[in-house]
């Protein structure tokens, strides 16, 4: 019954979004405040009904209702309760539902928090979001109905074992909030193009929303990277796989968007470019969610079984992306440009940032799509893999990180590069010290690694130059200096921390790429293996049966200088329902580094095969992302973001031009 109600709610939500797609925008055209105001109610109602639908599906999962096809295919009665719940979106249909649920949340949020928007703008934004809702609800209802019933089955076919992890509960929702969050900037851009008017107030509304999306996308990607790292059992953390690239692309252009919106907000410049970036970013998000799923990107694919879905998705993509770009081509010239600046200026630096970030996004996009297009044209298969991306993307990132510390120090309109360079001397000094130390102390490894470490240090130390400059440290004395530091705008702190975060991530990447070691050991009971000064003893293994899987669990003792520092239990699991094995690695963190031990196999003679990696400084990769996420959150609490968009006095006609 509840499942049917869920289906019903989905259909009602669909009808309401059709309504909201038309009526408020019609109201905006005819200047009818009544018609425009309907969007406030309908957006909340849509959210309510989609929440019902989503809740109904979750309920079916929670109660293991195997008369629902979707639940039967992707769940198991013996699974831990958390995995039952997260299993709701561990499949195509459920993840689509999660996607529109988040879309509805954002749409309703514009309705609720956007009271200070000009009414026509708000109506248009909500209208565009309703287009998206309508399309995707239609897609779900037509091709991916999660509520389809069947004759009740006794037991489910189980959730893909690799997804039976806390990662599934966190990673997809985060990533989706990131993807879908950019729908707001998209809707704002389309609304601006429709109205043919845009100003810095627009940027002030758009920037916090993009920031929210960016924070979640950053966290989602980092989390996914760590999940793959510990779950896949071979210690890789980034593969340049099409699916990963698909999530990385909107991140790159979203990062560019944050920076260009900054110029627009502060200096009323780069308007057209910002609008284009907003459109591109969401288009890449759509690509990330759907193109991957349609089976076009990878020839071997879970969801490729249904070509109708693939075609539908391509149609959606081309309609939204093509339509938006078409609109842009026609209307962009209406948007007036303003705010002049010299090449050497804060604006100039941000333009350079945008050029490099967009070029790297384009490079990753071309690299991702090239094999598909090449095969379509010539019929021959070609690979574009990690070595290509490392080379090209890396080459583009180096100039970016080199100039990054300069940006925040340069003045708006016209900057003094010599004065700024002087302020960065201490960062250069830090970089040189790091390079010398690295060459001195690290024996093995490529010659370029110490150099890259120096660049990371340059970035990390240089990121705090603006803080020093503004506080007057160390000249003014510690007391005044710290008082000033505490009083600085949070956005300045946010910039420093985020930029330092990039440096920290880079440092981790350099370390682990250049200095990781890998070994394979075959051990009998009581025998030892060595890795990076740690001694690993194999004590024995046991076989046991747990809930919906059985596992072989190996007991290891890890010693350093003869003292026991950790106990490791890598295991291999087998899930009978899906006939699938998984490997649970033993990951031991020492400082920032990790000793990663995966169980290969238990041989008939009771010896075990272990793969052992020493991953120096690897956690810095994710710690850097944590810093970036924290910085994003910090900038949202900045006074500017909170009161940035002016509130209009009551009893005023809101139809007029936005306040700039």
């Amino acid at each position, binding site marked *: 019954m509840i499942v049917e109600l869920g289906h019903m709610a989905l259909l009602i939500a669909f009808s309401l979004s059709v309504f909201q797609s038309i009526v408020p925008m019609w109201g905006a055209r005819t200047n009818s405040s009544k018609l425009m105001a309907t969007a406030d109610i309908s957006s909340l109602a849509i959210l309510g009904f989609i929440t019902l639908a989503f809740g109904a599906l979750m309920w079916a999962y929670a109660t293991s209702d195997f008369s629902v096809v979707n639940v039967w295919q992707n769940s198991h009665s013996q699974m831990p309760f958390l995995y039952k719940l997260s299993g709701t979106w561990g499949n195509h249909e459920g993840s689509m539902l999660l996607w529109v649920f988040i879309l509805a949340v954002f749409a309703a949020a514009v309705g609720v928090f956007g009271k200070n928007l000009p009414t026509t703008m708000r109506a248009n934004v909500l209208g565009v979001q309703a287009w998206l809702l309508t399309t995707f609800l239609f897609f779900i209802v037509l091709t991916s109905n999660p509520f389809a019933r069947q004759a009740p089955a006794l037991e489910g076919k189980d959730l893909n074992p690799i997804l039976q992890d806390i990662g599934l509960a966190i990673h997809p929702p985060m990533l989706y909030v990131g993807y879908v969050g950019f729908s707001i900037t998209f809707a704002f851009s389309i609304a601006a193009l429709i109205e043919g008017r845009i100003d810095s107030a627009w940027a002030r509304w758009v920037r916090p929303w993009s920031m929210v999306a960016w924070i979640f996308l950053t966290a989602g990607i980092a989390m996914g990277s760590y999940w793959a790292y510990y779950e896949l059992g071979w210690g890789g953390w980034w593969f340049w796989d099409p699916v990963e690239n698909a999530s990385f692309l909107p991140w790159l252009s979203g990062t560019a968007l944050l920076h260009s919106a900054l110029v627009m907000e502060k200096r009323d410049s780069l308007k057209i470019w910002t609008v284009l970036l907003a459109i591109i970013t969401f288009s890449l998000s759509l690509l990330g969610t759907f193109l991957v799923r349609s089976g076009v990107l990878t020839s071997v694919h879970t969801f490729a079984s249904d070509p109708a879905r693939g075609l539908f998705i391509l149609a959606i993509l081309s309609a939204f992306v093509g339509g938006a770009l078409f609109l842009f081509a026609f209307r962009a010239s209406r948007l007036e440009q303003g705010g002049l600046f010299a090449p050497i200026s804060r604006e100039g630096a941000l333009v350079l940032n945008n050029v490099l970030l967009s070029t790297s996004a384009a490079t990753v996009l071309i690299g991702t799509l090239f094999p598909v297009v090449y095969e379509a044209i010539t019929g021959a298969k070609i690979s574009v893999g990690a070595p290509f991306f490392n080379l090209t993307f890396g080459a583009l990132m180096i100039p970016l990180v080199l100039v990054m510390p300069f940006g925040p120090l340069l003045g708006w309109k016209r900057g003094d590069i010599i004065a700024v360079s002087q302020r960065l001397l201490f960062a250069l000094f830090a970089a040189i010290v790091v390079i010398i130390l690295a060459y001195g102390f690290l024996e093995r490894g490529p010659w370029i690694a110490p150099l890259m470490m120096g660049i990371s240090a340059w970035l990390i130390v240089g990121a705090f130059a603006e803080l020093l400059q503004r506080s007057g440290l160390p000249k003014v004395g510690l007391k005044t200096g710290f008082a000033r530091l505490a009083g600085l705008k949070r956005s300045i702190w946010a910039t420093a921390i985020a930029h330092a975060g990039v440096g920290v991530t880079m440092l981790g990447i350099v370390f682990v790429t250049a200095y990781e070691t890998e070994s394979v050991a075959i051990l009998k009971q009581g025998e030892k293996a060595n890795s990076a000064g740690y001694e690993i003893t194999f004590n024995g293994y046991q076989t046991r049966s747990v809930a919906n899987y059985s596992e072989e669990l190996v007991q290891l003792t890890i010693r350093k200088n003869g003292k026991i520092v950790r106990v490791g239990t890598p295991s291999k699991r087998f899930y009978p329902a899906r006939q699938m*094995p998984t490997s649970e690695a033993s990951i031991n963190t020492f400082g920032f580094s990790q000793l990663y031990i995966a169980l290969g196999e238990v041989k008939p003679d009771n010896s075990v095969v272990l793969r052992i990696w020493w991953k120096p400084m690897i956690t810095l990769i994710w710690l850097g992302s944590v810093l970036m996420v924290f910085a994003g959150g910090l900038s949202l609490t900045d006074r500017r973001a909170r009161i940035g968009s002016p509130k209009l006095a009551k009893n005023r006609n809101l139809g007029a031009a936005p306040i700039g």
Partner: protein
Amino acid sequence: MARLCFIWVLVLFLFSGSVLSAVAEQTLDSAAEDRAKLLFSELRCVVCQNQSIRDSDADVAKDLRIIVREQITAGKTDREIRKFLVDRYGEFILLKPVFAWHTFILWAAPFLLIILAGVLIFRAGRKQSQVVEAKLSGEEEKEVARLLER
């Protein structure tokens, strides 16, 4: 979610047949092994989902590693080894595509885009400075002159 299907496919291949049956392989002396490892990371495990033969434990990857090591021992250069493998498996095996006419767009795209951006920005900058000049001519200039004289 985006990663799920990727992981899923990976797992299918990773564990089909040989589950991390990492039997210690005959390695070469350290310098040659370093060279071999570099080559491994550039070669695709042809049955895997986007894994190099360095990372994969599939049987094919193992065989390929053995072939590469044999070729190194036989004194072949990296280029010769790559050619040998391309002749057998096609360009698909190279994770780093060759630089040639048919991959021109792929390799040149970053440079072309940077140049394009440079040209666009330069043009926009010139337009901008023209605007500045235009603004200062005419009525306004007279006004400025009048104000300055005062």
